[in-house]
């Protein structure tokens, strides 16, 4: 008789699956880290782009997919990450540490900016973040030391191009691993549940005692720091910034939205798939020029309307797949049920 008795269930957090993912993920990370010793470094350096695209998509998904904040202004933090690298590099830090320090600095800048952006909701939040990004760009180009409106290059850089590529590669790999691990742990924590309840119904979330603004602010700052690291990587790979309007371009937001939508918004796996698809498309179709961007826009509209869960969302609901488990499920606790049954048997003898 398999009947559920009160108190005989437990909450499963998919620990075993997480452990598997952790081991496999660690192995993949190790292989990728050692890849430059096997594969030619000039090949591995082309993967840098994939790594920062995954970082960007993951961070945008955290904002929009989990916290319900559609931002089209993440280019503010991408640009600040790139320019922050110049600032700390000029102060004497090597470019890679500069990227890390810059991301902390960008987090510090994002915190007060969140107070401005959070005055707005929904669609107006989206345009508000865009205005903030524009304002940030217009402030940055006032500094002559940062190249004013012309862009500039990194001054103290690793001289050897091979090492330069290698270090940037490892940094990019570390950043994407950090972004994914941080996202999984954030979503598995109490805050993850809070976030999803905010996304589904902010007023109800507030009513059950969730500190809505503090939770959203944390995500906003984390997403800004992630975007900053991606911006630093873009800058490192190009050995500088071609122009402020390029690094602060709203098209970065377009790419992030595209990757997340195609892959599946509100899942951790989706943005990775979306980034991979975008990376491949970019590799083969970007010579089509602007029609390529038009196709991206059309695809984004079609996917939103006709495949709202994205590729991964469809797959995972069809085959019950999860690579990064963040959910909860209620399962009968065999041991508890058995002991309870034992207890019932002794109490009521037949």
């Amino acid at each position, binding site marked *: 008789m398999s009947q559920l008795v009160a108190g005989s269930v437990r909450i499963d957090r998919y620990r075993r699956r997480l452990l598997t993912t952790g081991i496999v993920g660690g192995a993949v990370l190790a292989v990728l880290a050692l890849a430059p010793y096997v594969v030619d470094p000039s090949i591995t350096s082309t993967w840098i782009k994939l790594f920062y695209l995954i970082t960007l998509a993951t961070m945008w998904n955290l904002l929009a997919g989990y916290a319900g904040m559609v931002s089209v202004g993440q280019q503010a933090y991408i640009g600040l990450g790139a320019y922050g690298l110049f600032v700390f590099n000029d102060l004497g830090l090597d470019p890679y540490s500069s990227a890390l320090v810059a991301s902390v600095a960008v987090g510090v800048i994002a915190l007060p900016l969140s*107070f401005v952006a959070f005055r707005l909701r929904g669609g107006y939040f*989206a345009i508000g973040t865009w*205005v903030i990004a*524009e304002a940030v760009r217009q402030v940055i180009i006032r500094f002559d030391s940062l190249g004013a409106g012309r862009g500039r290059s990194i001054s103290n850089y690793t001289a050897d191009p091979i090492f330069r590529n290698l270090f940037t590669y490892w940094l990019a790999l570390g950043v994407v691993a950090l972004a994914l691990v941080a996202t999984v742990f954030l979503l598995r924590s109490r805050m993850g549940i809070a976030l999803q309840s905010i996304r589904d119904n902010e007023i109800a979330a507030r009513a059950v005692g969730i500190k809505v603004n503090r939770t959203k602010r944390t995500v906003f700052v984390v997403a800004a720091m992630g975007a900053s690291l991606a911006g630093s990587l873009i800058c490192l790979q190009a050995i500088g910034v071609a122009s402020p309007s390029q690094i602060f371009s709203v098209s970065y937001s*377009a790419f992030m939205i595209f990757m997340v939508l195609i892959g599946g918004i509100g899942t951790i796996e989706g943005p990775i798939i979306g980034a991979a698809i975008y990376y491949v498309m970019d590799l083969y179709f970007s010579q089509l020029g602007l029609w390529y961007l*038009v196709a991206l826009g059309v695809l984004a509209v079609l996917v*939103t*309307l006709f495949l*709202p869960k994205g590729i991964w969302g469809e797959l995972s609901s069809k085959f019950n797949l999860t690579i990064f488990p963040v959910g909860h499920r209620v399962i009968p606790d065999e041991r508890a049920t058995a002991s309870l049954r034992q207890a019932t048997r002794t109490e009521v003898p037949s």
Partner: protein
Amino acid sequence: MAILNALTQGILLGGLFAMAALGLSIAFGVLRVVNLAHGEIMTLGAYLAFVTISSLGVNVWISLLVLVPIMGFVGYWVQRALLQRALRLSELSPLLVTFGISIIIPNVLIEIFTNNKKAIPTGDLAVQSITITEGIRIGVLPLLTMVVAIVLIAGMQLFLAQARIGRYMRAAADDSETLRLMGVDHRKVYAFAMALAFAIAALAGVFFGMRQGGVTPFDGQLTVLFAFEAVIIGGLGSLWGTLAGGIVLGVAQTMAGLVGPELPLLVGNLVFIAILVFRPTGIVQSKVAV
């Protein structure tokens, strides 16, 4: 005197911003949809003006008679075919759809018309001006823009208060479910509101193009921000507030232009951020929700 002149020009510039903001306000007020492609719809309107003027050989006013209804029609079907579906899916979907549209339009425009500025000829309207006193001259075109903006806002208020479909629009904004129970198809009301939003956006786009001496594909990225700033500075839900917001933004930009030629956009954005921080409800408190 230079300050007084900048003030005057700023106020008139505000008329243009308010006109640009009107379509955004209507779409948000009735459908709760923020059209991220609003600026691109304006740009599209300006390009349609360029096409009709250069191919039919008519003047800009006749071209408006052609392009405003066309854009209204486009708006109606964009709502019915795309946004209505998006509205049912989730709160984020309409945003993502309009953002997709905002990527498509400028890139198609570049492929067709190249990146070069396309002129919207206005005869000698752009250079005519009225001298008020020494040092203050009012351009006929900015003045006309202001008059059109005021007429549009007044007309819109009257329309929402008096016309049957205008009242349906307010009803749909408040409670579309109940409107349906009353036997009105809320989807048609929504589509009509979007048609109105697109038509006014296109008109504003043409005026923007006339002022700039022409139109380029990425103008929309700038105008959508101006329109949005005017709405927020003025206060959500008030059409006259939007005019006031546009004027504040216009004056901030022209005043900053006195100090340095590269400052107007930055100061405009900073004023917007300051208003958002210190007076998030906007400078005009709304009494009636639109």
